[in-house]
């Protein structure tokens, strides 16, 4: 096992479901030593969410959980008990970073908020992920993927090419867990930058990450255009100037095609056999095309409907016209492209067997992303952590378990 980029960084992850665990996973995949703290017996909520092999629910077989928690050590801990809070503090004393996504009010009630914990370890770097952050009027509001998408405004501009009937088609949330994943990702960045601050000063930090903001930050373009041009975004198709990056129906599927800028536009006309309509004033240059794009789109689709996805791809690729099929997860997993990149990782798991899941989003040449261990069974590393690192005896473990502490 070669040295990894974050080897030696000690993280306690007191989080569940998506955002916190994804933040922890990003650190763990690059070598950080992440101890995941779960509620005794129940464990991370994600364990209850599918997909499950053969659709049979099993605490240790949730695809979502297995993916989000590879490379972590797992311990159980009931932080609501006096003994549990004590153990958490002992874990934190030995750590550089605490990643948590509990409701702010809950932390206050347990007196485990940053103000209290920094007394436990002054150099503690604490990353807090909450739907609406640690401050402000919505601080204690509840949220989920749906709510985060809608309150951040990103749902309102989804889909980006607008809808034909704004009454029948409400603003649209993004696919499963996008909100949590993006929040976790932003939190990982916030955490790493705080690590550098910690290196400079030896002092701790509190990283306060709001899921709403993580998503709002994705719509920065729309926000900026509004800020500058005062342009309110309406959802009606065609009300936005076309960006000419669109989905087209083919005879046997769909392609996503971008043929907007002069060069690609001309190559695309070749592909279509230089139809007459394309040479009318309406489509002469970018400006006019943008004005009349809806018309162009209709004409283009007339052509694509006549052809298979493959035909379109074979025609566009040599001409370097940006174009790809609209895939499902199935086609993605089976794509030669990702196979060539050797992207999917596979790891054997005691309970779930061999699991294939998405691998490194980017390759680091010297310190590779790697899978050191599968997601932990619930409490799998209690003995390794509590006895091995905190010095408790096994008999203590038996007592702590019986007392519902671990």
């Amino acid at each position, binding site marked *: 096992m070669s040295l990894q*980029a974050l080897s030696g960084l000690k993280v306690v992850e007191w989080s569940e479901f998506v955002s916190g665990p994804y933040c922890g996973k*990003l650190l763990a995949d690059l070598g950080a030593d992440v101890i995941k703290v779960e509620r005794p017996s129940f464990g991370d909520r994600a364990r209850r969410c599918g*997909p499950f*092999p*053969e659709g049979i629910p099993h605490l240790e077989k949730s*695809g*979502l959980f297995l993916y989000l928690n590879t490379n972590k050590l797992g311990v159980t801990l009931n932080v609501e008990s006096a003994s549990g809070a004590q153990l958490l503090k002992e874990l934190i004393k030995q750590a550089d970073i605490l990643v948590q996504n509990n409701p702010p009010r809950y932390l206050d009630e347990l007196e485990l908020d*940053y103000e209290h914990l920094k007394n436990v370890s002054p150099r503690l770097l604490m990353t807090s992920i909450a739907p*609406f952050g640690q401050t*402000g009027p919505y601080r204690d*509001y509840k*949220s989920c993927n749906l709510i985060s998408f*809608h*309150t*951040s405004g990103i749902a*309102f501009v*989804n*889909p*980006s090419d607008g809808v034909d009937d704004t009454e029948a088609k409400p603003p*649209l*949330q*993004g696919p*499963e867990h996008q909100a949590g994943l*993006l929040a976790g*990702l*932003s939190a990982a*960045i916030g955490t790493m930058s705080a690590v550098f*601050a910690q290196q400079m000063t030896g*002092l701790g930090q509190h*990283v306060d*990450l709001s899921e709403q*903001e993580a998503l709002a930050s*994705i*719509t*920065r*373009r729309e*926000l*900026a255009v*509004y800020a*500058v041009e005062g342009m*309110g*975004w309406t959802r009606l198709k065609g009300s936005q100037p076309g960006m000419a990056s669109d989905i087209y129906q083919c005879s046997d599927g769909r392609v*996503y095609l971008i043929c907007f800028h002069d060069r690609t536009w001309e190559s695309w006309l070749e592909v279509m056999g230089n139809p007459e309509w394309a040479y009318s004033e309406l489509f002469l240059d970018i400006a006019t095309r943008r004005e009349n794009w809806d018309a162009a789109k209709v004409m283009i689709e007339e052509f694509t409907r006549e052809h298979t996805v493959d035909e379109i791809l074979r025609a566009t690729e040599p001409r370097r016209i*940006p174009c790809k099929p*609209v895939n*499902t*997860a199935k086609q*993605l*997993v089976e794509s*030669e492209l*990702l196979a*060539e*990149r050797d992207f999917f990782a596979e790891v054997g798991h005691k309970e779930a067997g061999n699991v*294939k899941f*998405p*691998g*490194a*989003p*980017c*390759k680091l040449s010297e310190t590779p992303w790697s899978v050191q261990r599968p997601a932990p069974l619930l409490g799998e590393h209690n003995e390794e952590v509590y006895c091995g690192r905190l010095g408790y005896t096994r008999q203590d473990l038996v007592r702590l378990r019986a007392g519902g502490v671990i």
Partner: protein
Amino acid sequence: MDRLPLDGIRVADFTAVWAGSHITQWLGVMGAEVVKIESTLRPDLTRQVFRGMSEDCPMSAVFAVLNYGKKGCVLNMTHPKARELAKELIKLSDIVAENFGGPVMDRWGLGYSELKKIKPDIIMYAGSGFGRTGPDRERPAFAGIIEAFSGICSANAYSDGEPLPMATRGYSDLAAAEHGVFAILAALYHRSRTGQGQYIDLSMTEVMATLLPEHVMQYTMNGTVHTPQGNGDRVMAPHGCYRCRGDDEWVAIAVSSDEEWDAFCSAMGNPEWTKDERFYTGLGRLKNREDLDRHVQEWTREQDHRQAAEMLQKAGVIAGPSSKVEEVVEDAHLAHRGFFVDIDHPGVGALRLAGLPWKLNNVPPGHYCHAPLLGQDNDYVFKELLKLSDEEIARLEEEQVIY
């Protein structure tokens, strides 16, 4: 403390458009000195998306919001002398970032192996649609293409299942950018302990795949493909976006337990239909969600979307208004948290732009200067950093090297 986390780190930035610019923007805001290298012959595409903001500030809002916190200079890289200067700059840098449509850097003799020779601990970031290896390594790509290919468009759909382009154009650009930033920070951390640099090869396609774990694993585990959910959920009901009173105003509501269902009903004043025993259990609500949604919407139609959301949250029900872009900008909560930053732009004045979505409690808010005008920091770069004389600079401008 008064220093930012990345103080003292210098980035030679060849990136453009969304995916690249957003990366170096994070680094800039966190205190790194980002020198964006463009050319009058090859300005960043996004400078001209829509019209510029004013005579003195010929940049688009999009460019402004993706490039604040950076310095800018021009170099005509088609010119050998320009590549020499670029190398000089890289010697003084810690990070080189690029996201060209192909192996442009190699053609310029600025590939990683070359750069390593002149700066052994350099960290080089290369962002691309399909990665810098594999069959499509030279293929240009845009966010939409990536989203289509990675399966997220198929997952982004109303109940009719028609795949749709993702919310904001450049969704995958920005998601990929954040992964890129994270990878760079990890590499920096590694370098801080070992003195080792490295090469980072990011594929937007792969980023999107990592952001679809549930769908991917549903297939790898069970060989079946998840159906898209629209505003619905596989478990919760009610769970949707419901029409409200005002003009295209909507409220999102999610009910995750019996307790929340009861709270929701009493918040609505327990209308008769809530007593329907098909809606009594969680499973029942899910199995009859069409009827349920219809009833809920009958109620929301009479409500103001903000008030409804607030009332429900007070009652302990998960809810939020579906905010329009302008509403987000006005949002009291975001304002209170200082999510937006006001940045002065020459000839335009203060612009209210989206900041970065995290707060560090004991460092300054971050380095937010306006996005650079084309070549605005030529003097700093060539005179102060590369120690060229005014004459040399003048000559190089004439020779259209600095251009």
